[in-house]
C-alpha cells in the first residue's frame, strides 16, 4: 500500500469503535473514530476517507442523515452501513441514497478488515 487508506468509524458503541479501530491501525490504516453522526459528517468532510463505516441507529442523528450529508461532501468515499438488522425495503432506500453495502452486527474484525481491503484495492484500480 503506497498511501495509508483512511477509514472513518461512526458508531455510538465506543467499545466497538475502539476495538475495531485499534485493530485497523495495527493493520496499517489511518483510523478516525467518532460516536456521533454530526461529528462524523465533519470528519468526513475534513479527511475525505476511503471508507466510512456508519451505524444506522445513533443517539443524535440516524445513519441515513449522515449518509446524505457525506454523499454531498465526499462523493468518492465508500459508505458502508452497519446495523444489527436492516430489512430489504430500508436497504433499497439506502442504496438509492448512495450506500455501498451493509454489514450486520456483530462485526467480526478480521473478515471485515479483509472486505475493506478488497474494496480499497478495487477502488484504486479504477
Amino acid at each position, binding site marked *: 500500500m503506497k498511501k495509508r487508506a483512511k477509514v472513518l468509524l461512526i458508531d455510538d458503541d465506543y467499545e466497538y469503535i475502539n*476495538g475495531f479501530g485499534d485493530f485497523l491501525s*495495527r493493520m496499517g490504516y489511518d483510523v478516525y473514530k467518532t460516536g456521533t453522526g454530526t461529528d462524523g459528517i465533519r470528519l468526513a468532510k475534513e479527511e475525505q476517507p476511503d471508507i466510512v463505516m456508519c451505524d444506522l441507529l445513533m443517539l443524535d442523528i440516524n445513519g441515513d442523515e449522515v449518509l446524505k450529508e457525506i454523499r454531498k461532501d465526499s462523493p468518492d468515499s465508500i459508505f458502508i452501513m452497519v446495523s444489527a438488522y436492516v430489512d430489504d425495503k430500508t436497504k433499497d432506500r439506502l442504496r438509492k441514497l448512495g450506500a455501498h453495502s451493509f454489514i450486520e452486527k456483530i462485526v467480526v474484525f478480521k473478515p471485515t478488515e479483509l472486505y475493506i481491503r478488497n474494496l480499497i484495492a478495487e477502488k484504486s484500480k479504477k
Partner: protein
Amino acid sequence: MNIYAVSSLSASIILYVLAIIVYFNNTNKFLNRIYSIQCIVIASWIMGCFGESIITNYNFLRVWDKALNVFAIFSIPTFVHTYYAILGEKAGKPVKFLYGLAIGLLLISFSPWYISDIQLIKGVRYISKPGPLYIIFIMGVVYGFCLCLYKVAKAMKTNDDRKKLQLTYVMMATGSMFIAALIYLAMVLDIAVSPLDNTLNSVYGILIAYAIVKHNLMDIKVFIKKSVVFASLLCLAFSVVVGITFITQELIAGGRLIGLAISTFIIVLIFAPLEKFLINITDRYLFQKKYNPADLIRTFSKDVLRVLDINVLVRMTTDTLVKIIRIETCGLLLRNRDGNLYETAAAVGLGDNWRKIHIRKDNEMVNYLKSTKTYIRITNDDFATPNNNNATDTASLKAVLAIPILIHGDLIGILTLGRKRSDESYSRDDIELLLMLADALGIAISNALNFEDIRQKEKLATIGTMTAGIKHDIGTPINKTSAAVQKFLIEREFGDHKKMPSEEVISNAYDLLARCQMTFEKVSNIAAKFADFAKPKRKAEVERIKLSKSVNDAIGILEREIQAKNITVTQDIPDSLPSVVADRDYIQQILFNIIRNGAQAIEEANRTKENAIIEIKGSTDKSGNILIEISDTGAGISAEEQNKLFEPYYTTKPEGKGTGLGLAIVKELMERNNGTISVKSAKGQGTTFILQFPGANHEKTG
C-alpha cells in the same frame, strides 16, 4: 237515562281504562303512575257527574256533590303534575303551589261558602251551586290549563318529529278538556251552555289513547293484532244482521225472514270491500310502521356483529331481533363443547328458566336444519315428542321459525323466532333477511368464541413487524462485548500481552469473562421478554397489578423501536396510584398496542425530535377510577375516523403495518378487565387514548 248521562258514563269508562292500561304498562315509571292517578281522579269526578244525571234523591245528591268535588279539586294539581312528567320536567313551584291550593280548597269545600247547594241544569243533570269562595277553584282551573298549554306549546319547538307529533295530540287533548272544563264552569255559574263537557272529555281520552297506540306516547307500545280487527269486523256484520232484522220485523209483520234475507244480501255485498277498507284504515292509522329491514341490517352490522364477547353478542342478537322485528320470543342456541347438545345462550320471552332449555343433537329439528341447511317453519305438532324425557324442548322455545347458524356447513347454533306481535306470519323477505343475518352471525360467533386465538395471532403479527427491533436489542449488547473479546484476542496475537505482567493479562481475561456472562444474561432476558409477550394463554388470570410496572414493561419491549424513531417517552405515574385488578398479559398487550400506535403515528407525521413525544400519565378521577392517558404528537385522528377506530379490521395503516385488529382487541381486553377506553384527538395535533379502570371500591373480578 238521557244522552248526557251516556256521555259522562262513557268518558269516565274511557279514562278508567286508560288509567289501568298506562299503569300496568310500566308500574315502575313515575310518569305512568302519575298519569294513572290523574286519569282516575278525573274519571271519578266524571263518574260523579254521571251519578248526578241519574240520581234524583235531593238529599243524597247534596252529599254526593260534596264528595265528587274532592276529585274536582285534586284534578288540578294531578293534571298539571302529569304534564310536567310528560315533558320530563321536575315538578317545580307551580305544581307545589297547586297541591297546596288543592289542600286549602279541600278544607273549605264542605262549607256553604264554597258550594252552597245543588242546582238542576236543563232538567237533565244536577250540578254544584257555587258559593263566593268557588272563584278560587275557577281561577285554579284556568291557571292550571294555561300553564299546561304554555308548557306543551314551548316543548313543541323541538326538532324531534316524533315528539312533536306526540305533543300535537297532547295539545289537542288538553284543548278539548280545557273547553270541557270551561263548559262545566259555565254551567256551575248558570250560564246557558249545552252540557257537552263530558263528550269533550271522551274526546280527550280518545286522543290520548290514539297518541299512545300510534305514536308511542309515554313510550308505551301497544300492539294491535289483526285478529282484533277481524273480531270487530265480525261484530259489525252481526250488528248489521240484528239491526236490519229488528227493523224489518218492526215494519213488516212476520218480516224476520225477509229481514234476514236483506241483511245477508247486504253483508255479502259489503263484506269484502268493507274488510279491505277496514284493514287499510287500521294499517294506515293504527298499526305502527312495519319494521325497516335497513334498520335491522344497520344495527346488526354496526353494533351487534362487531362484538367480540360471546355473551354480549348473543344477548344483543336476541334483544335486537325482538325489538326491531317486534316478535314475542327469540332464542339463540349454541352447540356445547361436547357437541351433543344445543344450549340456549340467550333468550327473550322464554321465562326465567330459559337457560335450562336445550335440544339434543339427534333432535328432529336439528337433523332437519343440519341436512337442509335452511330455515324451517314450525307448527305446533311438528316436533312434539312428549316421550322424550324432557331432553327435547322444542316446544318450550315457543318458536314458529328456526334458522340455522352455520360455519362451513357445520351447524354451530340455531336461531329461533316466535310469533310476531302483530300476528302476521313471516314473509319471504323476512326469511331472506334473517338467513343473511344468520350467515354473518355465524362468523361473528365463531370470532367471539375464538377470541383468544385472534388475540394471539394479532400479538404474533405485531411481533413479526418488530423483528428488526428485536434483532437490534439482542445484536447491540453482543456486538459490544464481542468487540472487547476480539480486541483482547488481537492484542494476544500481536504479542502485546508478552510485554505485560501475566497477572494483569489474567485479570483482564477474567474481567472479559465476567462481561461475557453479563451479556449472556442480558440477551437472555431480552429474549425472554419477547417470548413472554408472545406466549399464548387460554384464560384470563386476574391479579393486583401496578400500572407503572406494566407501562415500563411495555416500553421495554418497544425501547428500540421508540429510539429508532427518535421519540421521547415521558412517564408520570405517581407511586400512590392504586393498583388495578386485571390480567397482566392483557394489560401489557393493551399498553403495547397503544404506545406502539402512538410511535407509528409520530413517525408518519414526520415530527422533528423535539416534537416527537409520547406522554404517559396516571391519575385518579373524582369517583376513584384509575386513568392512564397516553398522548402522542402524531397527525391526529379525524372525528369520523374516531368513530370507527375500535371496529375490527378498520385500519388506516398501509398494508403490512397493521392487522386492523389491534384497537378492537384493546377495547375488548379493556372491557374484560372491567375498564373502558376512549380517545380524544384533534387532526394535526396528536391523539390521547384514555384507559379507565374501576377503582378499588367498585372493582369486580371475573
